[in-house]
């Protein structure tokens, strides 16, 4: 089916990458942005979308979302999560390689791409495994993975066996201009930990993950990034100190970027105080100072992206004593409203906040999306900025209903989502 010619009329167009914030119409043809403002010569639309009173922004790009397929389809599927993403205004999802089987061969990433295309929701891109089966010892066929469409490489949450293997992996990835996506964690320091090591872990007797598990890893990784010249990205930083270390490295010209996950921008170790399994995260929720430091890093641009760190679970995964529960929260549904909340709470400017979920992550993935420039893929999110709604099991579209933001009032609701010029979600 050829994509329709669409005019989005009367909305407030906000495109941080192109420095546009104005009441402008958007014209879409052949799946691409045909024009902004004035209609191209002879443009006739098949579909008119009335965006009066609404915001028209680039489709969101989420750097870290687990779709659970292949391998854990009882938690969620590519089908369910790509539709949920579309309903949340997200048009590009990046999934880490820790599926089962692991994304360490072209066949797995091709299967994921194929399934996602069949669904027709959000676009899915994937990270290839840095080592075979994420074993931390044997390099994967990174060139083949890149040829198959992997947008970067990562060892997910799994450690590398040694700094020597890490050095070799960085060198090999750099050979093919692949970005390495890092989980900053010193496995020995974080071993058995299930929350931030601090006064709450002491009170609850829960094994802690010290701040140094992250800062030691960042220091080590930065040294190897600087030596090998590999382009690297720190996913889901949690500590103020790590953000400052990355800021310093960026100032020194290191090819390094970083992001933060939504929960760490709002929640802290204190939320764990009643053994609430919905607050179990790896990497963990940290202190209030860390939360503030992350917000500051986001404002200043050290953290160029906000990700959902989407981890949908079946109910049983959270029904156990805290240490035995699986970490992570279902985050697609709340990514946009909780990003906008940073603006209403005066932590960020609107344009910066939108950039952190559009052009920021797109640039980290080196993908031509996250903006509404002429000729770009027509990935668009049209939202009602004033609509409020409650996050609960009924309003969530993800198959995973595990969220620490249950019953929070959300402001900002998606009305339409377009990907490659096709309407993939409509609230009407």
């Amino acid at each position: 089916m050829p994509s329709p010619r669409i005019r989005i009329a009367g909305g407030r167009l906000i495109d941080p990458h192109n420095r546009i914030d104005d009441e402008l119409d958007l014209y879409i043809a052949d799946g691409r942005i045909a024009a902004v403002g004035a209609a191209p010569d002879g443009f006739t639309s098949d579909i008119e979308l009335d965006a009066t009173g609404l915001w028209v922004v680039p489709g969101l790009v989420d750097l870290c979302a687990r779709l659970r397929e292949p391998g854990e389809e009882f938690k969620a599927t590519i089908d369910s999560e790509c539709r949920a993403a579309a309903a949340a205004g997200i048009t590009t999802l990046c999934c880490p390689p820790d599926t089962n089987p692991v994304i360490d061969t072209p066949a797995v990433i091709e299967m994921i791409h194929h399934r996602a295309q069949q669904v027709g929701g959000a676009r899915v891109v994937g990270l290839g495994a840095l080592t075979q089966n994420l074993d931390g010892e044997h390099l994967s066929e990174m060139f083949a993975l890149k040829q198959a469409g992997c947008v970067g490489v990562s060892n997910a949450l799994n450690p590398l066996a040694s700094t020597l293997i890490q050095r070799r992996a960085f060198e090999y990835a750099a050979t093919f201009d692949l970005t390495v996506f890092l989980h900053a964690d010193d496995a020995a320091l974080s071993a058995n930990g299930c929350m931030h090591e601090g006064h709450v872990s002491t009170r609850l007797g829960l094994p802690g993950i010290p701040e140094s598990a992250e800062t030691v890893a960042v220091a080590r990784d930065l040294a190897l990034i600087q030596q090998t010249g590999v382009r690297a990205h720190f996913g889901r930083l949690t500590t103020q100190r790590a953000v400052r270390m990355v800021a310093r490295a960026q100032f020194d010209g290191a090819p390094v970027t970083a992001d933060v996950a939504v929960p760490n921008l709002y929640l802290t170790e204190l939320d764990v105080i009643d053994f609430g399994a919905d607050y179990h995260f790896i990497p963990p929720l940290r202190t209030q100072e860390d939360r503030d430091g992350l917000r500051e890093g986001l404002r200043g641009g050290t953290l160029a992206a906000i990700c959902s760190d989407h981890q949908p679970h079946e109910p049983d995964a959270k029904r156990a004593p805290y240490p035995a529960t699986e970490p992570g929260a279902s985050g697609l549904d709340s990514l946009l409203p909780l990003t906008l909340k940073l603006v209403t709470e005066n932590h960020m400017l609107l344009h910066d906040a939108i950039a952190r979920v559009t052009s920021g992550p797109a640039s980290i993935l080196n993908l031509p999306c996250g903006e509404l420039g002429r000729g770009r893929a027509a990935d668009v999110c049209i939202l009602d900025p004033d609509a409020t709604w409650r996050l609960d099991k009924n309003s969530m579209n993800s198959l995973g209903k595990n969220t620490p933001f249950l019953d929070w009032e959300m402001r900002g609701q998606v009305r339409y989502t377009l990907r490659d010029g096709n309407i993939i979600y409509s609230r009407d």
Partner: protein
Amino acid sequence: MSSTDLQIRDDGRLRHFLSTEGLSYGLLNEILDTAESFAGVAEQSVKKVPLLRGKTIVNLFFEASTRTRTTFELAAKRLSADVLNINVNASATIKGETLLDTLRNLEAMHVDMFVVRHSDSGTAHFFARHAQPHVSVINAGDGRHAHPTQAMLDMFTIRREKGADFGRLRVAIVGDIAHSRVARSQIHALNLLNTGEVRIIAPRTLIPAHVESLGVRTFHSLREGLRDVDVVIMLRLQNERMQGALLPSEHEYYQLYGLTEEKLSMARPDVTVMHPGPINRGVEMDSQVADGSRSVILRQVTYGIAVRMAVMSMAMQQNPAQESNA
């Protein structure tokens, strides 16, 4: 729901006993007073009261224990309850039955109370959160989090030895605070009872992060920490702690933190020496101290039964003091 809300009924009485943290001065004293009334039961020729006749109590132990399980069992039997001991080794739960399944299955057999021990912190809270309204949960030790009945029997022991005014006491806890659920419960209980000063004494590897937020003063030297204390509580040092990098050797630990008569001379002359057992003689303390006149270690075991009877009867709303008032 906070843990305090979880363990207290709307009328302020005990529903579950999960942690000493968040309880009131009044409630802790009620536990001690009730235990006092039960302490005599053991000395009668018929060692039973009919308070929990017809009630079924399950000791659900996911972690090996002899002493604690036995005293809970004796306490339940002296209250005339029916007792079922279930020792679940970890492998049975790994087979697929979740903890929630275990709880639901036992509830279906009309159990009235669970006494739970598990290696994961928060397990007793988990049971309490999911238990049916008429079911009570007693925490017999969860991970490193809490062991409230042990702490209360220690408070009972201190009250018997030193009187009810904890405000004039200095109490030192010595050893592996970081991994000890007993220490955490003791610290909360001592502070709730307005103890004059609570000290902990250990090398830095055995002290958890931000421990001062629990309301303790930290010492790294046993001699300094023992100066003028009224009560010293020694913690058991688990053998596995010696295998990691927490401590170099038993020998050096004993040299620095082992309780000897000589080091004990820093304390007040009438100091009381306690230990939750079992003792590693020659590691945590010298036999001379363990068996000496200031040691009350065996009395602690005896009091354990009375304290557990008190907590069980209170949680089942069968307080003898209340009945006589009625």
